[in-house]
């Protein structure tokens, strides 16, 4: 996946003195292989865009897509670390359901005074999620109980507690609007709107949805600033590498990559700006993606997780405290599961017994589609996020087309298998 690998291949396969077009084609093919997953996502998007007669990329639907699937990506970030460290967590869907039930009960049913405040309740629930993760991690790290078993137990326990808390089959709600904003809210429009085409007004003086073109300027500004920063930091990193005399990917590849990513980001922000602006949950997700990319790529703790997953014994003999690291990884997973639970509850506006049911499988699938190895030691944040989007686009697209829920599962299963087979094949070839 990394650019370094690509440049290795290049130096190995290209004989010295080969110049000109052939060299570039070979290099380009290598890069395409590296970005195969992105291309797959784009292909899937185009297919559904055509099959849904253009509904997929409509601003309303994009907002829906993000709001419906963000919890999968949020949890996939934690799951990536779990899987890279050589473990698995089956309990995340149940933990999310339990936390949703807990936060709803705290805000709606229990008379807790200030603690019923949505923000306070949410923070407490994230902490509870962390405790749950730590409790499971404790058995895995310090008692060497296989994570599959511990989290299978957790899956049963927390689904049961979720239902018990909600008093059997009941749902608890409605939840306060302030809380719901986590999922269904949009960033406040601080700059204002710009009307390109005035919306049509109906007989009652109300605007008709979907007509006219009103831009939320703050969203557009965020998009443009984001793209500029992305390009700036990309260039800066290249410059530094050059100064230290290290290899860079070819400039043309860098330019094309930056332009393509920028175009996608600008297109999406533009689409959001024509609706209600940037969804809050998208911002939360983006911040977390940035954070976890940094943690996995640049920090010592991230590096140690990869080392532990790659060869546990070698990591221990290199002075890495693998027990503590495992505990941290599962604690982190617990917090992110809790956040996922909050996002689900906020979107539904209530806590239901089936919240998050089966989502652990979507989360795990996203990570594996994203190229992580079931043996541990391999996997990237970007891959998992794209894997999450692939699952999300398929969920959303198939719902719009009206594919039966049963067959949606079949398709998702086939895509998971296909993605991993492709990846394994690709690696053996490379």
């Amino acid at each position: 996946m990394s650019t370094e690998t690509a440049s290795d291949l290049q130096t190995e396969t290209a004989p010295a003195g080969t110049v000109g077009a052939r060299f570039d084609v070979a290099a380009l093919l290598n890069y395409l292989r590296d970005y195969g997953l992105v291309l797959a996502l784009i292909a899937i998007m185009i297919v559904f865009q055509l099959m849904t007669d253009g509904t997929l990329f409509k601003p309303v639907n994009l907002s829906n897509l993000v709001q419906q699937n963000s919890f999968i990506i949020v949890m996939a970030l934690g799951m990536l670390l779990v899987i890279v460290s050589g473990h698995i967590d089956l309990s995340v869907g149940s933990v999310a359901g339990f936390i949703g039930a807990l936060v709803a009960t705290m805000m709606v049913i229990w008379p807790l005074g200030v603690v019923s405040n949505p923000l306070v309740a949410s923070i407490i629930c994230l902490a509870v999620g962390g405790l749950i993760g730590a409790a499971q991690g404790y058995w895995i790290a310090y008692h060497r109980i296989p994570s599959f078993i511990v989290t299978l137990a957790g899956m049963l326990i927390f689904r049961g507690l979720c239902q018990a808390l909600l008093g059997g089959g009941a749902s608890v709600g409605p939840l306060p609007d302030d809380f719901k904003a986590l999922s269904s809210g949009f960033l406040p429009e601080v700059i204002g709107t710009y009307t390109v085409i005035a919306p049509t007004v109906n007989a009652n003086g109300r605007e008709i949805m979907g007509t006219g073109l009103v831009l939320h300027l703050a969203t557009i500004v965020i998009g443009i600033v984001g793209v500029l920063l992305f390009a700036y930091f990309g260039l800066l990193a290249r410059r530094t590498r050059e100064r230290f005399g290290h290899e860079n990917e070819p400039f043309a590849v860098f330019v094309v990559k930056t332009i393509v990513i920028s175009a996608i980001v600008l297109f999406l922000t533009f689409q959001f700006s024509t609706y209600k602006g940037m969804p809050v949950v998208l911002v939360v997700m983006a911040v977390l993606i940035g954070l976890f990319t940094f943690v996995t790529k640049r920090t010592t703790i991230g590096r140690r997780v990869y080392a532990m997953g790659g060869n546990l014994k070698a990591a221990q003999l290199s002075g890495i405290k693998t027990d503590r690291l495992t505990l941290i990884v599962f604690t982190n997973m617990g917090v992110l599961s809790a956040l996922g639970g909050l996002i689900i509850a906020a979107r539904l506006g209530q806590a239901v017994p089936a919240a998050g049911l089966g989502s652990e499988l979507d989360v795990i699938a996203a990570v594996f589609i994203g190229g992580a190895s079931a043996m541990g030691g391999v996997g990237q944040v970007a891959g998992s996020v794209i894997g999450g989007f692939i699952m999300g686009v398929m969920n959303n697209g198939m719902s719009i087309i009206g594919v039966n829920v049963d067959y949606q599962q079949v398709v998702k299963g086939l895509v998971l298998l296909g993605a991993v087979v492709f990846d394994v094949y690709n690696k053996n070839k490379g």
Partner: protein
Amino acid sequence: MPSTILEMRDITKTFPGVTALSNVNLHIEEGEIHAIVGENGAGKSTLMKVLSGVYPTGTYSGQIVYRGKECHFRTIKDSEHLGIVIIHQELALVPMLSIAENIFLGNEHAKRGVIDWNANETRARALLKKVGLSEDPRTLITNIGVGKQQLVEIAKALSKEVKLLILDEPTASLSERDSQALLDLLIEFKQQGITSILISHKLSEVSRVADHVTVLRDGHTIETLDKQQINEDRIITLMVGRSLSDRFPPRDPNVGEVVFEVKNWSVYHPLHADRQVIKGVDLNVRKGEVVGIAGLMGAGRTEFAMSLFGKSYGRRISGEVFLDGRKIDTSTVERAVDHGIAYATEDRKTYGLNLIDHIRSNVTIANLGGVSRRGVIDDLREIDVANDFRAKTNIRSSSVHQKTGNLSGGNQQKVVLSKWLFADPRVLILDEPTRGIDVGAKYEIYTIIAKLAAEGRAIIVISSEMPELLGVCDRIYVMNEGRMVGEMAGSDASQEKIMRAIVRGEGKAS
């Protein structure tokens, strides 16, 4: 004239971008022990994989003529069917199955799918007797040592009515005594008419048992020598293509004060709580000194080193460790590393490296603090460090971003060394530093050891190859059954002296 059992003619095998074998010829006579030697990457293992059908017919060019008939093996089963059995360097035994189950795996005495355990056990006992292994066939593989596992592999080969036995580095992980026993076994087989092909790095073994030696270099057959022509120096010259005037680099030891000292070290077995593995061991190393620990397999050398290094082995560990005369705590690997102690393992694939990651992150993993600030890794500095060590230890790779799993044994060992050198240890424990690597790479490792000692580090070398210890060490401890049974200066040590210490120690221990 003895009849020919096997001829391989003009074997050429290419992998994408590399020619592993080019027109290799091999001629094996019935009932002989034929050694194949060559540096790592010379093509020995590839040749044997072609012979045994691991690389099926059609993926290489050339002819295999076995007992006068040309053969086209599609799978290993095809070659085994004709009595050609290969025992790989990495043993292929299932640890949680018993000896008998492993011997007959895939080949059980069974009636309509129902296994007759009594018949299996009886056969297994007979086979174990043949290879001289006195273990209950119901013992799990995981509970016996590597040397015995090797014998189980051979018993397994015998169960397949072997005619041509191929052994790939069979003694690489065996002690001197187990190696001798294994070689004696080969000679016994020879008398029974079993032909053996022995792939080995240990030239002393080759010259002891081989009737012919074929030398491979860079995928070419260089020469086949017969018994009268076998001579270690000549073989080395043929292997490396240049004359190696000395197998060990010259050193001018400059030994100072005692740096590292262990007193009364005792360790119990992790599973059998009442079995004492290390029994009150004392040891010291001086600044700039290379100290060897000699001993047989199972003497407790690795267990001693690993228990010292962050209690990585054993239970109920007691004893004291001193650095510069001050008592230190080495109860976790992290603390040991902080005190400047490093342990480079004997088993680099299992304990030393993250094989799926590249050289760069393997080199820095034991000292990430050295390339990071407040928990954030400085990429560029890390690459610089990795490149620096790649040059210093002469790691042959396309770049520091090559996966360590794709490197040869010698280069992997250099990555392990680099990892510990970057941690800048004052005391470096090297456990079998040259196991399974070729003569050229060995010399490079010895050079690195000499350089480290010259820098004033204290070095402990654990090795089962006595000439190696005699070649690199200033002082040699002899360990046997968990005790130090001898200590001698390198200058007046000899193989006989070491063996004598072991034998005497054995008498004393009982």
